């Protein structure tokens, strides 16, 4: 468990040392990407061309309802595109990441690296 920062502590934590830049980085994190379920979905989609709903469900461990909601949010944010096709009385849902989504995911990991570097 991390020791809480005391006012009398001679060395304040890195977050305060770096001041504005770190706070700015934290504040500029994309909230859509920063959510764990959506980050997992984007990580999967960034590693392939398309993935179907069943694979995303298995790979992320999300329930069908939650996955559906998160996919809709990502599509609304223009980070992914969802396609639905009918096949033998079944609807096959596939998703793929768009350029903006790939860019936002890369930017997010770079920001996280900066935060890690600042804390180290």
């Amino acid at each position, binding site marked *: 468990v991390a020791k809480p920062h005391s006012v009398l502590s001679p060395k304040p934590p890195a977050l305060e040392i770096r001041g504005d830049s770190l706070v700015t980085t934290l504040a500029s994190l994309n909230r859509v990407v920063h959510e*764990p379920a959506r980050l997992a979905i984007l990580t999967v989609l960034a590693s392939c061309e*398309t*993935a179907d709903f*069943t694979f995303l469900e*298995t*790979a992320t461990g999300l329930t069908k309802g939650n996955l559906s909601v998160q996919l809709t949010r990502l599509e609304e944010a223009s980070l992914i595109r969802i396609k639905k096709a009918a096949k033998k009385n079944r609807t096959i849902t596939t998703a793929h990441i768009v350029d903006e989504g790939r860019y936002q995911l890369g930017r997010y990991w770079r920001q996280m690296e900066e935060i890690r570097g600042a804390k180290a």
Partner: protein
Amino acid sequence: MLNPQRLEFVTRHFRDLQTIRFAPVPVAMILAPDWHRMPHVSPSIARGMLVAFLLCVAGFYWWSTVAIRRRYGSVKVSREEALRMRRHPIIFALYVIPVAVFVARRTYFSDVYILSAIFIPMLMTILDSTNLASRRIAWAIGLVILFTAGPLFLDVEKGAATFALAGAVWLSLSVFDFLLLRRIFAEISNFPVAAPTEMAVRRG
């Protein structure tokens, strides 16, 4: 907590981890030393047996593909990603060898071609940095066994022992890959998604 590198690995190599769909082929190779003990049969019966075997291979492939798709879903990897390892300098250089043998001296071409067909795909898996270390090590062990013990069995049972060894290595690696796939998905179902900060730490 789930490691994002594992998530990337399982997505990128989802199809590669399903070589178990060809299981009847290595099983038949393992049984190779017993083939010549079979009583002689007429060519028409032999052809019938071959057709039955090919149907068995195709049937198992179709059934396992459908079963895996229903259970785990499907992923389409981009053509660029599928061809990524072929552009590796070592792999590219190895592709040149059978071509050079074919052009210069065609006598040993079939031997060189068979060796390349086994060696290159195995080396692609070992050299691929996006693979998990455990998979790369397992495939490296398989390659070493095949190319060190294999030649020793060339004279046993008219080479059938080497064939059986190749089948055993192929089947073992297929089972290893499929168990790895199942284990990663089991880990995910136990720990659905990690906090982004935790994922960032594990990614680094």
